[in-house]
């Protein structure tokens, strides 16, 4: 079968270099490893914070030192855990709706130019409104509690998903489209076979932004109108001038954000390894998410 005439026989050696990422130097000191880096930075910042509080005699109702925050976290851990679970619940629920809605709307906007032109100004306008302004209305409609928090989380989280999915769909190479169209492919074929898989890296990137925004949404709503959740805890702590507890609440939100974020980062590597050409996936696997 490979009977090309002899003059042109010399096969090109494949430029495949799979071993590139495997050649990690064997003896990296532990503190230089990827896994250690975020913890070291955190430790350094905490130590500086602690030192500043003691050196300048900052009153604890202005800025409590981390040791005091930690103590408060321990003292109130049962109460905090309850509120944290409530916030996590509303956040995840809002986030799930945002993913479904954002993916659908992003796909629609990326699919149809007409919809894109029609919807984009509206979307931008809507997203420019501070979501705090919505909470009061939501409370008026749905009462105090879980529902306004879920909706606020949804409202904040869905915009980056829409924009990213639409961007992924809109940047399909025209030549790829030509190849498929010249085969008689419908716009639907192109959407399913090229557009959607292509926008997956954009989608996953947006999820990481969206989940952090969902936390912001939940907590904002809880600070305005709720009987539970970290936001409620924050308001409660302020009214009692318990600033260490206030900071403990903030630390818990941040920690939950980081945990959920790294969960998505690890899923992302599995689904969109092709986009990073396999390289950073290997980095993440060897380095571990901090």
């Amino acid at each position, binding site marked *: *079968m*490979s*009977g*090309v*005439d002899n*003059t*042109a026989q*010399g*096969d*090109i050696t*494949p*430029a*495949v270099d*799979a071993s590139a990422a495997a050649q990690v130097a064997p003896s990296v000191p532990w503190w230089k490893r990827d896994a250690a880096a975020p913890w070291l930075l955190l430790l350094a910042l905490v130590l500086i914070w602690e030192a500043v509080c003691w050196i300048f005699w900052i009153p604890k109702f202005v800025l409590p030192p981390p040791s005091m925050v930690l103590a408060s976290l321990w003292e109130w851990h049962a109460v905090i855990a309850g509120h944290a679970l409530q916030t996590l619940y509303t956040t995840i629920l809002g986030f799930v709706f945002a993913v479904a809605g954002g993916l659908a709307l992003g796909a629609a906007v990326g699919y149809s130019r007409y919809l894109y032109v029609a919807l984009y100004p509206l979307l931008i306008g809507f997203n420019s409104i501070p979501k705090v302004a919505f909470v009061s209305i939501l409370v008026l409609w749905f009462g105090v509690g879980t529902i306004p928090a879920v909706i606020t989380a949804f409202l904040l989280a869905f915009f980056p998903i829409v924009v990213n999915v639409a961007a992924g769909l809109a940047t399909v*190479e025209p*030549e*790829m489209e*030509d*190849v*498929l*169209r*010249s*085969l*008689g*492919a419908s716009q639907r*074929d192109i959407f399913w*076979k*090229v557009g959607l*898989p*292509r926008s*997956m890296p954009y989608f996953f990137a947006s999820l990481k932004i969206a989940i952090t925004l969902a936390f912001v949404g939940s907590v904002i709503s809880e600070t305005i109108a709720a009987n539970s959740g970290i936001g409620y805890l924050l308001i409660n702590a302020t009214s009692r001038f318990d600033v260490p507890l206030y900071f403990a609440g903030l630390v818990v939100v941040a920690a939950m954000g980081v945990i959920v974020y790294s969960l998505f980062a690890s899923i992302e590597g599995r689904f*969109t390894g*092709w*986009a990073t*050409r*396999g390289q950073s996936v290997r980095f993440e696997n060897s380095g571990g998410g901090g």
Partner: protein
Amino acid sequence: MALAHEAAHAPAEPSTPLVGIENVDLVYGSATGGVEALRGATFSVKRGGFAAVVGPSGCGKSSLMKLTTGLIPPTRGRVVLDGDVVNGPVSIAGMAFQNPTLLPWRSTLRNIMLPLEVVEPHRRQLRAKRAEYRARAEALLDAVGLSGFGDRSPWELSGGMQQRASLCRALIHEPELLMLDEPFGALDAFTREELWAVLQELWMKQRFTVILVTHDLREAVYLAETIHIMSARPGRIVASKEVDLPFPRTLEDTFSTTFVDVVHELRDHIGRERQT
């Protein structure tokens, strides 16, 4: 699939041309302030023929590709393919571009099989005949010297290998017409010449009709039976040249006087077109 080197050179019987570009004008953008890409372009390609289109850059060569495959309509004139006037995307064509445009999330083999998921009747039969289609794709990979690379991702392949895969994808549904838009333009000279031989062998074996758009005159003379020379924008065909060299052509032939003379003649033509 035995090779028939001698038989392939026998002239094809003069039947109706597969492709007919008839007095085609093409204006991009609005009718008043648009860019005129083609003006009165006319040429035809016989069934099983190998035509090359050369010309100065920006002369509307790529527009010809899109017109022929029905991706864009002509402003005036008509495009006839297989006896019918083209009025929408045709499905008897395969296309390959300078950019291999492989989908990075699919393996090379699944990239090559993509047209089978789109073109009828393969689309309907894909589920039932998957093994057969897979074997066909692997045979094509073998023919272009990529056997064993089907399971690799496209980005693990070199540029030349990606272009071979792209060629396989253009041919998997056994199209009657193969449209090539500077397919080897981004490759180094050695790889390019190697792929000329690969393409020529595939063409001689399967005798699909080829339209090759290129700015490489040696490439055109090496591969094509007929070379159409386009003018500067707005493009039209200013001359057509038959290449009287027997097939299969080898790299040795590219140093023969006949070959060099044809290249010179083409160069003169294009040089004149660039000045006007």
